């Protein structure tokens, strides 16, 4: 018997991969087995192209309690508690059905967190869309934001931070990355490793339906609209809330051996992964699965991606306890099978074997590929562009240029979006969204807090994947440090195009190399992550977007700062004086060019600057801190002034020489490792002394006050005009 090309396309396997399956089994796979291989050997589950590259990441550190490989990573945060967190993509579903795609993305990442035994306490999201001049893009933004709020608000988990970025390449392929953070007692950390032959395999939560079949393979091909219609699942946050409470209640008992949520590839991946991790087998009969509709066969049940379900491995004597808890929450608890000794995943349908495969064939034997890696020469050419050949900014244009940048989609206020997310629920949000560079969430029962932020400047990564990768890690760490938190660990979501094409593989490889190097230098290990490839349409990939979610620790919750400068405060620039227009927002907005080399970054300087800021906040010496990113110094200052509703009188002339005497570079050029802090004049000497002790460059810029920004005798810009431009840049349809 030979399998047809059509069948292979449906399960997204190559002929070579099929031959490998036949060789492993010593026979042709059954239809159910083939579907299971297709799902498990997809890029989404099997990390075929990324696994060899992911080994570059540092994954260990003294705080790491659980690194990559489980549903989420966990770090030690003191007081016998851990923080579990992870970020994951839901790009492909969101491109087709933005509301449900984004909603189920939130649902999936929240399950990953409580599967670990952690109570989810915060949500973040990182979004990428095409320009809002297109009605389709406005629809996608509005739908995605609606879905995130609809699901997270109903669950009662605050959405506290995130980032949104716009560029042409995301037009038909938006990116929706959702991150969740949870708190877990060390003794409650639960892993997804089945063990103990004879233990029961229980499927809990929602009924299983025909939705989402082939979701994992769908996420692993480009142009999914062509091949996989109708695979987007529909979320039910109410059920998820019940499942969350019931699972956490169950974990308080001693009966649970392992827990694994059902996400991509549904029941298949959850039983395969728990068996494979635990080195045991699992046998189930799909006849015992509660279903939403009649007539579903084993293939459909094994590949359904119906949401709000969880697999629990429990001791036999715990079955009554499980039943009681789930009945109380009006949820299913179906005993569908048991743990076995032989290491095989065996699926029965009313007693007849329809699949019988060693679990490790699905996982360890998944092929990996190292592809040819060649930079696109056109990108190298763009990078070589020297922006200093362009005419400098006319001083009279300063005000208009600043207002243009403040109102631009990539810089303006996210308030219209943020208002639709509940961020005060759970009464822990100490530094809410919009108020600082990262959110600060207190941990009840302790004096501590966590700071968290997602970010990625894809333009930097596009123009130089290696340096851009370093920036992503450095900037998220800097954001967290600006609140006063010490960056502790990170999670990442690697959103790229089709890795089978050498220029995309090059981006992936170099970005990971840069991120790994920065993560090492800043001692922020990678504890979890997700890879989303094939983000392209008609052969045009998205800008390479390796989003990072960073979590930092604050020992004394009272000691944190936001970004609002106060009247009377002085502003001090910490970090390098030189900036570049290469890869900058200014170059894109004013000269309509995405070109030039992104700013260079010295990771040791970066680390010293961050440590200095953390020390200043911990010592109660500064009243605000804000990093300079898109839009450079002028925009960062403007943002601090808008937040504090004050003007300022500043002298930037000492920066002129380091910027080649160019006004545009000095004001709007971008650089790594720069933070602006606001200081009460009485504390200025001590702040400067601390910075000198650490050997960090710093410069007193001037003093806040008045109702306009006055810089170097340039035409003054009223704070009211800056605020209006910034606040009205983004409109939700």
């Amino acid at each position, binding site marked *: 018997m030979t399998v047809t090309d059509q069948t292979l396309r449906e399960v997204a396997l190559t002929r070579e991969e099929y031959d490998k399956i036949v060789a492993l089994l010593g026979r042709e796979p059954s239809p159910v087995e083939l579907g299971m291989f297709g799902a498990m050997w997809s890029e989404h589950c099997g990390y075929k192209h990324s696994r060899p590259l992911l080994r570059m990441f540092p994954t260990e550190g003294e705080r790491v309690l659980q690194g990559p490989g489980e549903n989420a990573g966990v770090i030690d945060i003191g007081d016998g508690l851990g923080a579990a967190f992870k970020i994951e993509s839901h790009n492909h579903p969101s491109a087709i059905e933005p509301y449900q795609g984004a909603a189920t993305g939130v649902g999936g990442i929240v399950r990953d967190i409580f599967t670990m035994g952690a109570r989810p306490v915060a949500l973040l999201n990182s979004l990428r869309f095409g320009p809002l001049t297109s009605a389709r893009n406005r629809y996608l933004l509005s739908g995605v934001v609606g879905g995130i*709020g*609809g699901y997270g*608000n*109903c*669950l*009662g988990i605050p959405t506290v931070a995130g980032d949104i970025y716009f560029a042409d390449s995301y037009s038909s392929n938006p990116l929706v990355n959702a991150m969740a953070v949870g708190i877990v007692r060390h003794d409650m950390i639960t892993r997804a490793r089945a063990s103990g032959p004879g233990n029961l395999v229980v499927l809990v939560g929602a009924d299983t339906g025909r939705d989402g079949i082939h979701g994992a393979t769908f996420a692993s091909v480009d142009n999914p609209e062509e091949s996989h219609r109708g695979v987007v699942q529909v979320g*039910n*946050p*109410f*059920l998820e*809330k*019940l499942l969350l409470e019931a699972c956490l209640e169950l974990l308080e008992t001693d009966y649970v051996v392992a827990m694994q949520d059902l996400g991509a590839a549904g029941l298949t991946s959850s039983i395969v992964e728990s068996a494979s991790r635990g080195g045991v087998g699992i046998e189930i009969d799909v006849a015992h699965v509660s279903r939403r509709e009649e007539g579903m066969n084993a293939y459909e049940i094994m590949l359904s991606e119906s949401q709000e379900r969880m697999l629990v491995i429990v001791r036999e004597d715990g079955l009554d306890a499980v039943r009681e808890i789930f009945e*109380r*929450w*009006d949820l299913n608890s179906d005993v569908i099978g048991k743990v076995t000794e032989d290491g095989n995943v065996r699926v029965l349908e009313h007693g007849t074997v329809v699949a019988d495969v060693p679990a490790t064939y699905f996982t360890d034997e998944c092929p990996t590929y190292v592809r040819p890696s060649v930079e696109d020469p056109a990108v190298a050419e763009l990078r070589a562009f020297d922006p200093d050949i362009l005419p400098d900014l006319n001083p009279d244009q300063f005000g208009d240029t600043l207002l243009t940048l403040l109102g631009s989609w990539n810089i303006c206020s996210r308030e219209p979006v*943020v*208002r*639709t*997310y*509940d*961020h*005060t*629920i*759970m*009464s*822990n*949000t*100490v530094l*809410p969204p919009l108020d600082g560079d990262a959110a600060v969430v*207190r941990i*009840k029962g302790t004096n501590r807090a966590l700071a968290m932020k997602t970010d990625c400047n894809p333009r930097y990564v596009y123009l130089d994947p290696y340096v851009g990768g370093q920036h992503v890690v450095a900037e998220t760490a800097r954001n967290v440090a600006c609140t006063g938190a010490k960056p502790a660990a990170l999670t990442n979501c690697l959103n790229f195009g089709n890795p089978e094409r050498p220029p995309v593989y090059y981006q992936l490889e170099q970005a990971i190399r840069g991120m790994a190097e920065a993560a090492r230098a800043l001692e922020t290990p990678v504890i979890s992550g997700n890879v989303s490839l094939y983000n392209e349409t008609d052969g045009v990939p998205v800008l390479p977007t390796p989003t990072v979610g960073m979590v930092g620790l604050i020992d004394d*919750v*009272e000691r944190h700062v936001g970004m609002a400068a106060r009247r009377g405060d002085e502003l001090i620039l910490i970090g390098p004086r030189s900036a570049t227009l290469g890869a900058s927002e200014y170059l894109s907005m004013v000269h309509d060019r995405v070109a030039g080399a992104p700013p260079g970054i010295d990771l040791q300087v970066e680390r010293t600057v961050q440590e200095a800021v953390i020390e200043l906040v911990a010592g109660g010496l500064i009243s605000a801190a804000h990093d300079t990113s898109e839009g450079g110094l002028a925009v960062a200052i403007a943002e601090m002034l808008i937040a504090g509703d004050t003007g300022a009188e500043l002298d930037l002339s000492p920066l002129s020489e380091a910027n080649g005497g160019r006004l545009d570079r000095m004001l709007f050029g971008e650089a790594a490792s720069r933070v602006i802090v606001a200081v009460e004049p009485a504390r200025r000497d001590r702040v400067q002394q601390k910075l000198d002790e650490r050997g960090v460059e710093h410069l007193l810029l001037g003093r806040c006050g008045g109702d306009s920004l006055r810089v170097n005798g340039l035409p003054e810009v009223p704070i009211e005009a800056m605020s209006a431009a910034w606040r009205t840049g983004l409109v*939700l349809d």
Partner: protein
Amino acid sequence: MKFGVVTFPGSNGDHDALSAIELGLREEVAPIWHKERSVDGFDALIIPGGFSYGDYLRGGAIARFSPIMDAVAEFAAAGKPVLGMCNGFQILTEAGLLPGALLRNQSLRFSCKWVNVRVETDRTPFTQAIDPGTVLRLPIAHGEGRYFVDPETLEQLKARDQIVFRYTDAHGVETDEANPNGSLDNIAGVCNEAGNVVGLMPHPERAYDALLGGDDGLKILGSVLRQHARQVA
């Protein structure tokens, strides 16, 4: 004094209510499961926020049929204090324990922010200890918070002093800008005719610690203590 916080499936403000009373007010409090049929032993009841039963039909429309609601109605009829916040307010209107209805926000979007509300009367157990005219800063977080009643009922509410909170600016002036959801007459909260059952859309239970942005919520939750003390005395 012992507070009870009712948890319906889908409630998510129950944890905050428990924390606010335990950590902020430092009073005794216990959760009450919606399948219970008795509220014996409690001195005041809180119906918390959330999305009871998912609220797919309409806020509070299903929760009013929960087994516990008969006991809540009896408790209310006996003149004991009941406070509904956000979804709890919606449930109490659906159950007929409070007048009016909560419609979708005028913006048709969920809205989360801090607002100012003016206390309109001190005749309820939850405003007993607050001078009328006092402006409180509280968070809101809802998609269906637009208070509505027919014109006759509105006149009745005014005549019977049943309007408990109104959205205002920081100086206590009612303005359109200060009204976050298009509520009729800027109404943020009302009480029943007897005054012992109060519902409001803002979240006093999220404002119990200055670290969280404000602790004005404690004035509302703590107000009931004074009445209780007087009754006991």
